[in-house]
């Protein structure tokens, strides 16, 4: 029999900013130094992107542009090269985010609220699903799409992307839902609300920050995904920026480095901005804590 689980677990993402660890002052100077050094190494590969995009005469080399200018950006700001692919990326990522979120919330509710022998194996199965190397199933997925005549269809690609991000999303969503105290929901039942109504009016609003995190997490992954649309979407008109930028690289790669860099930056800005929004809201950890702790 299933019993509603008692009380919440830990609240992920809410327990940052504890007291500083012991030894804070003594060790901080060299910790600062070491961190800055590592940070610099992480920024180095990005340096070329930024400098190259501003240099109309850019090559592979990283150098401060002699005559910095926005010509590269102007050159790629065309409907065919930039706007249509970005629009396709947006459709793909937003669609994937929403399908994933809807399916994940529905799945997470019983997993969070009822106790059953079914839960543990299911969650382990899900965890296992997070690990499936997506590249390994692209060949059969392509075959499946051929068979079902779904090739070159944006909605079908959205469904597939949603399926690949679902395991992680269910895992995260369940942990967020666990953090919503059952007592609040019970109060609503007493007032005669159905489970569904209580879910909608009590649980989901409380989970909103968490759901935002899940949505954005999925969105960012779909936005950056190259291989899946590369194989499943064929016509130029449906291709997202990841694919169009790849063919741009293949053709102009040896010639127009500056434009490639500018294109890359314009394509990356939306997800970087999204990340900043989440990071400011829930601490730097993207609430991954909740996702990853078993």
């Amino acid at each position, binding site marked *: 029999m299933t019993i509603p689980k008692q009380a919440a677990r830990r609240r992920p993402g809410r327990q940052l900013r504890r007291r500083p660890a012991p030894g804070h002052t003594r060790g901080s100077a060299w910790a600062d130094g070491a961190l800055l050094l590592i940070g610099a190494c992480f920024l180095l590969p990005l340096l070329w992107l930024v400098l190259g995009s501003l240099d109309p005469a850019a090559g592979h080399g990283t150098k401060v542009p002699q005559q910095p200018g926005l010509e590269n950006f102007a050159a790629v700001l065309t409907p065919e090269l930039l706007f249509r692919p970005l629009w396709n990326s947006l459709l793909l990522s937003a669609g994937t985010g929403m399908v994933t979120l809807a399916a994940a919330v529905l799945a997470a509710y019983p997993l969070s609220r009822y106790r059953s022998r079914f839960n543990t194996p299911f969650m382990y199965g899900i965890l296992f699903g997070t690990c499936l190397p997506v590249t390994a199933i692209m060949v*059969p997925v392509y075959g499946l799409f051929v068979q079902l005549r779904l090739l070159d269809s944006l909605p079908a690609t959205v469904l597939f992307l949603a399926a690949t991000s679902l395991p992680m999303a269910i895992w995260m969503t369940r942990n967020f839902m666990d953090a919503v105290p059952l007592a609040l929901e019970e109060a609503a039942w007493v007032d005669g609300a159905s489970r569904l109504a209580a879910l909608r009016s009590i649980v989901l609003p409380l989970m909103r920050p968490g759901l935002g995190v899940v949505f954005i997490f999925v969105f960012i992954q779909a936005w950056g995904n190259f291989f899946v649309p590369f194989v499943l979407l064929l016509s130029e008109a449906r291709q997202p920026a990841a694919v169009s930028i790849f063919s741009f690289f293949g053709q102009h790669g040896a010639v127009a480095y500056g434009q490639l860099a500018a294109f890359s930056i314009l394509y990356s800005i939306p997800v970087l901005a999204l*990340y900043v929004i989440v990071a400011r809201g829930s601490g730097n950890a993207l609430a991954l804590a909740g996702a990853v702790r078993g």
Partner: protein
Amino acid sequence: MAANHRTRQLLRYLPVLPAVLLLLVFLAGPVLWAFHSSLTNAGLTGRYARNPEWVGLQNYQRLLQDPVFPLSLALTVLFVAGSAIVGQNVLGLALAVLMRRARPVVSATVGTAVVAAWVLPEIVAAFAAYAFFSRDGTLNQLLGQFGAAETDWLYTVPMAAVILANIWRGTAFSMLVYRAALDGVPAELTEAAHMDGAGPWQRLAFITLPVIRGSIATNLMLVTLQTLAVFTLIWVMTAGGPANGSTTLPVLAYQEAFKFGDIGYGTAVASVLILIGAVFGAAYLRLLRERKP
């Protein structure tokens, strides 16, 4: 009564259905399909494109004779061990530990730099890494300052280049996981150890690490399997070359299936990859399960 109960229980789990359906159709289905195609001679073109024949284990036999396969297997292991198990995992932990000691401004800034590489679309990250290691790229320019000769990193040491690139790209994940995990270590524990005269290394080894063991195992599993699937980064940087010097299993599977049009053989490679993933996954899950009562 009991039957009634069961129906109610089933009904309660009804909302799981959409997710389960999606997972079955788009993940479980293709996995089974992969095993099935790997036993046929399906091709992208040629006479077996539309009507593949059943060839049994022939593709797997060919795999065993193919000199590229053991090489590719070894490179995959090297790639995963070097960039995920050692690289991302250790560097991520080190960053998280350092961040707790450093000034908040510094740790926030560096955190952003590390995360930026992770949030970037994979193809952009791959271009940036390609440009960084290319002949007249940033790395050679930097080393040139110290008088080092120009080296074609992507050509002479392709594996080192893609491993470093993958560490650069993926460390943020481990860092975030470990930051969260370290935040969960009760301060009293480490403080008590401090009072007892334990040095920072001892506290890390004997207090912190054992406490976050679960996070370590989970993180290891996730980064291992993510790294096992890395394709775009390698494809853009080296396309598996030179002379197959960086052809990991995903690259090999892609080449065989899509470039040479041998879908049967390509899926055989992919099936091996799935099996390796499953073995890794099962091993880590065991670790996790043993930890819990």
